[in-house]
């Protein structure tokens, strides 16, 4: 039994004087440890027609060299520890993670490297060119996958120019011209401790971790009073979606159809209501969409709906892929089901089953250090608190027909409904079964 286990305390938080925040969850049953650092440095801070893609290129280029390590050294040192690192950028943030076995000084050594990568990048010129070439290929290849393409257009239309809708990958025309100087500029503006959250879950010692983080990051930008992520977030206005239909005729086997409408933001008291309702509507194999579109009519292989949310706004998105001859009926059935959901609500049975389903998922995911690290990261990022699993379960249990009714009343889907499709059918045929007044801009 180690020190942390003896103390009996399993959840921890800490804030450094320079504003860097830390959260930790000790898991006595695991040997693994998952580490993540999240920074308010996502694509929403870019200038859409000038620097779109820079946040993502920075994510790649941080690993291309620091003042004391080459790209190869960064990689090889992490691999010697057996640490598997990952990173990702979306509209709201950049996240750097590592998964490792929590023994010896593995965690400290991993932190040393991540700190170096975040604080001392050199953005070497030649590597910059190579990474930029890679991203341009990624953009082209992504366009070849119809489902990806449909969702990219859908997001762009939904966010309607709002920074939260910028595609993190960037555009060919912007990425082509991005320079290391623009990256340095963006990095110095957004990569600072006041803007950063570290989350760790699994097998580790909290006191040792705090000491190490303080010695690594504590002297960085101390006393400089840079804007915190809380202030930066305030600069982003909520989006103003409008109804929009984008149908791209394309030679493919299936018609790939995406739809989306506005839902509640991540901090809303209706967050779990939205999760439950979307689960019932299109979550799994017993959802209404699966049953009506696939099981009863055989129109598709893939169909479903999901709810995703950011701080200012939430989004329900729907996807279906179907061959050309069945596509008008598929669209019609989905729209009918959506109207039915908003007219009639859900049944007792559906409500109870969806709650069980979501609770079980939360508990079972809670057995993985990586999932706990991510969940704690999100709850602290958006709400400045840790949500223990029992509390999440209580909130799911608290969803009632009444709260569902309220939620449905605040999220009317057809006020601003976006639909994007790619496939052989022209728009009028695809939407033949949908009342025209419903999808009027």
């Amino acid at each position, binding site marked *: 039994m180690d020190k942390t286990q003896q103390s009996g305390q399993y959840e921890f938080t800490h804030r450094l004087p320079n504003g860097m925040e830390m959260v930790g969850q000790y898991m006595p*049953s*695991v*040997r*693994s440890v998952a580490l993540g650092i999240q920074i308010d440095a996502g694509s929403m801070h870019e200038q859409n027609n000038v620097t779109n893609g820079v946040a993502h290129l920075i994510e790649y280029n941080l690993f291309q060299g620091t003042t004391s390590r080459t790209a*190869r050294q960064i990689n*090889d040192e992490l*691999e*010697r520890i*057996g640490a*598997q690192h990952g990173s990702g950028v979306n509209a709201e943030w950049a996240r750097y993670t590592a998964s*490792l*076995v929590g*023994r*010896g000084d593995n965690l400290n050594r991993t932190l040393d490297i991540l700190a170096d990568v975040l604080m001392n990048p050199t953005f070497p010129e030649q*590597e910059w*060119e*190579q990474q*930029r*070439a*890679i*991203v341009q*290929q*990624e953009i*082209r*290849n992504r*366009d*070849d*996958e*119809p*489902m990806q393409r449909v969702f990219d257009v859908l997001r762009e239309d939904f966010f309607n120019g709002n920074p939260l809708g910028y595609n993190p990958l960037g555009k060919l025309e912007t990425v082509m011209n991005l320079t290391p100087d623009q990256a340095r500029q963006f990095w110095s503006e957004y990569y600072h401790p006041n803007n950063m959250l570290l989350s760790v879950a699994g097998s580790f010692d909290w006191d040792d971790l705090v000491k190490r983080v303080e010695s690594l990051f504590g002297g960085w930008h101390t006393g400089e009073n840079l804007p915190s992520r809380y202030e930066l977030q305030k600069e982003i206005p909520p989006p103003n979606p409008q109804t929009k239909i984008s149908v791209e005729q*394309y030679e*493919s*086997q*299936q018609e*790939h159809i995406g739809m989306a409408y506005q839902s509640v933001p991540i901090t809303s008291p209706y967050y779990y209501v939205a999760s439950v309702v979307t689960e019932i509507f299109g979550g*799994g*194999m*017993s959802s209404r969409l699966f*049953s009506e579109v*696939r*099981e*009863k009519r*055989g129109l*598709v*292989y*893939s169909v479903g709906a999901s709810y995703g949310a950011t701080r200012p706004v939430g989004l329900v998105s729907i996807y279906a*892929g179907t*061959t050309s001859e069945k596509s008008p009926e598929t669209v019609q059935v989905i729209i009918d089901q959506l109207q039915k959901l908003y007219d009639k609500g859900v049944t007792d049975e559906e409500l109870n*089953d*969806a709650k*069980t*389903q979501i609770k*079980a*998922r939360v*508990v*079972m995911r809670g*057995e*993985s*250090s*990586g999932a706990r690290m991510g969940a704690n990261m999100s709850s602290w990022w958006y709400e400045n608190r840790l949500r223990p699993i029992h509390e999440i379960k209580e909130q799911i249990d608290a969803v009632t027909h009444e709260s569902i009714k309220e939620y449905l009343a605040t999220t009317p889907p057809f006020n601003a409904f976006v639909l994007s499709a790619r496939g052989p059918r022209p728009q009028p045929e695809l939407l033949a079964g949908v009342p025209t007044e419903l999808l009027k801009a």
Partner: protein
Amino acid sequence: MMQGQTNRHGIEQRSTFFTHQLKNGLQIVGEQMPDVESVALGFYVKTGGRDEKPDEDGVSHFLEHMVFKGTQNGLTAADINIMFHRIGASFNAATSRDVTYYYCMVLNEYYDQAFKLLYSMQRPKLDATEFNMERNVILEEIARSLDNPGSHAFRTLNSIYFTDHPLKTTILGSRESISTMQIETMRNYWQRRYVANNLIFSVAGHFDWDHVVQQAEEYCGDWESGEVGRRLLQAHPKPQFVVVTKSNLKGQLLAMMMPGPSNQNERDVQVAGLLSIIVDDDRLFWNVREKGLAEGVSFGSSPLDDTGVFSAYASTTPAKAVETFQAIRRELEHIQEPTGRITDDEMERAKNKLITGMVFGGESSMNRMFSNGRTWMIRNRLIPLDERMALIESITIDDIYDLLQRYPLTGPTVALTYGPMVQDEIAAAAPDLPVRTEPAILEAEQ
């Protein structure tokens, strides 16, 4: 029953393993994990696309769908979906070239309900009306796979590499085979392949072993046994370079396969796994991707029952395709030359990476259930994590070169490119291979 102990990684093995066999041949394997609340259950059926007769193309996968459409003991499709949902199960099924499996993960208090659903599904009703409805879903799944360049390119390459071997299966079947398939064909296939002695029940996580055995005896004890087996054959790939031209794409995909070790020898499998990490993460990543040639590049080993393949894959653009292709083949050649010999450092990093992955996998009941079901199917024994770790630790660089003697990465290569380029534009990438242009698989029939 066997119980592990602390190994030299300081990773304590706390799992307990169990096995049991019913009189009809159904095998049960269990791994108790004291620290989890979840339990993962799965039925492994040793059957897949490779076990189909010529008139059964696609039946394994179509049957996997039908298993969810109603059971002989009276559960309907809706019952199955709703009951899984009601107990909060994560559940699914998959069909591959050599195995079909059905699984779910639940909190341990729902073990009985979960087991009831899974065992009932192994005795499906195979109703004609449901069959005809589900046929449409399969046809949609085929169409969908053709719109995904990566998956379509891989299926095409696989069918060309295994041209004279049952592994050439597309798994999904073709539009024609699915459109014309009769339910009798499926019933016969089910009767032949889903016999008790061709199934393994794997359970991992939080459970009571005596209860697991008692339930299996009670509900699966009357299942019939039968003659099973599978044709084991050598593949004879013909070196060639196939060009699939898809003029509406922007990216250019490259893929190649060459002979690799089969599943027969656990040590070979692990040696090939380490080699793959080194080729993938050390050689191709740094000398192809990070040179800006291809946004994605990978290398892997797929050991199968009687044969195996190594495969390399790259996602690039027409402008870089020739150079990328040559660079990949150069790396595969170079690792076999004295100047390209694997270093101690590469070996250590590859081992560490593999072991970290195993520690994370060891904490997931779902992962352990999969691993045990598959290992039992192949080896008729279970391999605890610490035994597998010790095996990996014992592998030397010489072991890798011994494997490469037998399975050189410069061996008979079947390569494929998929994208806007035509034959004349890319043929120069592989002057040693006969080049031809072909339509992609499943599209030819249109």
